[in-house]
């Protein structure tokens, strides 16, 4: 299951200042055996459980998310995979009655530590949602710049540079450069989603979480986003939740399979390199799922 890295030649060399942790790009990405270095761990989830009120949705799921890899989370509806990645940037806690237990470590610091500022967590761990959600009252430029402004970056030339670099990284620059003042929601669905990706990466997070980013898009737009993910993985660590098994197989380096038990609690069944999980699953439930026998 070879994953082809479609490195798009664009201004990825643009200066992106001081993001710690994100290690230099591992050599040999796209070549055979590129995953054999178990590179650094970007995020370490330790026995994470999540609740919606009394409903126990995720049960003690531990995962190491590797730096500059694409990690896919697959599983049938209701297995808790979306809830789980929403714990990674503390978005879960915005749901009324929601609760999280366990620890998620970024650079050895538990993001749920009371001393940690959740807004700072979300600046370092960005998110792209299922439905494209550009801000309707903002232009394309303002959308991409919004995160920078939230972060306190107001220097005009710096903002302009970062907006351009982010739009290029999101493979959207060429399509919108003549019309940057246009409202973000005037774009097509696929363009809107790439705008949201540009917005998320403009603040230079270490990790980008993607919650079914293609499920609202047509196949051509989906291919573009998938190509984009591969090129973005050179600079960012990506975690993607997807319903689409082929997508997980195409783009990801590592795949986790989650499943809700009879008790309704979602647990991690198997977590392995994507090639292994799809060709030689260890757990019979994984095999049943990827061969389409349930879910």
């Amino acid at each position, binding site marked *: 299951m070879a994953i082809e890295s479609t490195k798009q030649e664009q201004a990825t060399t643009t200066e992106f200042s001081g993001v710690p942790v994100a290690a230099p790009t591992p050599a040999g990405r796209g070549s055979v055996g590129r995953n054999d270095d178990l590179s650094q761990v970007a995020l370490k989830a330790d026995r994470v459980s999540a609740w919606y009120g009394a409903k126990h949705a995720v049960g003690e799921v531990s995962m190491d998310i590797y730096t500059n890899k694409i990690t896919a989370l697959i599983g049938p509806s209701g297995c808790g995979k979306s809830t789980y990645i929403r714990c990674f940037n503390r978005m879960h806690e915005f749901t009324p009655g929601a609760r999280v237990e366990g620890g998620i470590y970024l650079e050895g610091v538990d993001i749920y530590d009371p001393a940690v500022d959740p807004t700072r967590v*979300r600046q370092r761990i960005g*998110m792209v949602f299922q439905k494209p959600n*550009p*801000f309707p009252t903002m*232009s394309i430029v303002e959308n991409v710049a919004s*995160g920078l402004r939230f972060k306190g970056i107001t220097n005009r030339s710096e903002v302009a540079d970062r907006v351009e670099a982010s739009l290029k990284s999101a493979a959207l620059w060429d399509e919108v450069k003549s019309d940057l003042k246009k*409202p973000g929601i005037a774009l097509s669905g696929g363009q809107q989603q790439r705008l949201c990706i540009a*917005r998320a990466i403009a603040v230079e997070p270490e990790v980008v979480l993607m919650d079914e980013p293609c499920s609202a898009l047509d196949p051509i737009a989906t291919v573009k986003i998938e190509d984009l993910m591969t090129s973005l993985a050179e600079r960012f660590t990506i975690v993607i939740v997807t319903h689409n098994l082929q997508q997980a197989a195409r783009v990801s380096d590592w795949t986790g399979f989650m499943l809700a038990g009879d008790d309704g609690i979602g647990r991690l069944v198997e977590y392995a390199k994507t090639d292994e999980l799809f060709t030689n699953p260890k757990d019979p439930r994984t095999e049943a799922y990827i061969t389409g026998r349930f879910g």
Partner: protein
Amino acid sequence: MASTTWAGADPLASHRARRQLIDKIMTAIMITAAIIGVIPLVLILFYLLKEGIPGLSLDLFTSDPRRPGLSGGGVRNSIIGSTIMVGLGTVIGVPIAVACGIFMSEYGQNRAGTMFRFLVDVLAGIPSITMGLFVYSLLVLPMQRFTAIAGVLALAILIMPIVARTTEEMLQLVPRALREAALALGAPPWRTILTVILPAAVPGIATGVVLGLARISGEAAPLLFTALGNQFTSTDVLHAMDALPLRIFVYAIGPYDDWHQKAWAMSLILVTFIFAISAGIRWVSRRGAAIRH
């Protein structure tokens, strides 16, 4: 058999005729109800134009009232007074009301919020004359005089619950996805509200402001013992000030035909003013939204 059902004698014919008859009757009832509902509006507008237009003159806008019984003169004092008091009342009341609406929508999903919402509804239900009495004892008695600011305060309190409730409802309509987008970018909740949620709700909030403005523009009761009224044009908010509804009231129950005609003319001015402001605010907020959308 099927072919006879369609082409020949229809066993369901009587049933169908009955159904079509009921349909026609019901439609007729609905149309009649709709027409009856619109009749008062049409009549009001008709009488306003018929009785009001003859009273319109340049003098009406440029001069103060003359002594009772003398014809001529105008109601410049009332027009200027209404503009000042309604304007100030809106400027003071709306920001507070929007803040209340933000509180109810964003921080009020708990018992304190429910309590607060109930109080706002009670405030909306308080008769405007009671509001006038309240401000009378709060400002007029201690100051020992009738003042325009007392009228402004009464109008500001009147507009607040209307705008607060509309703001809350409009903020609740902003899609959850937008909140999440801002929060996921590392925006603190207060910045999410101010830069993303509130701008998205502006056209709806503007509608609430229009409703409130229309309401307080026509209020005479809360001004009766606060601003009191004034025979002369005054722009001093620390003295008594006139207002269109006050003068309409005085002139309409007065004994002179000239006054009656002026009362109609003032009513026409008031309605036109409210209509123009409504159209203006809606146009500006829609245009603002259209530019950004």
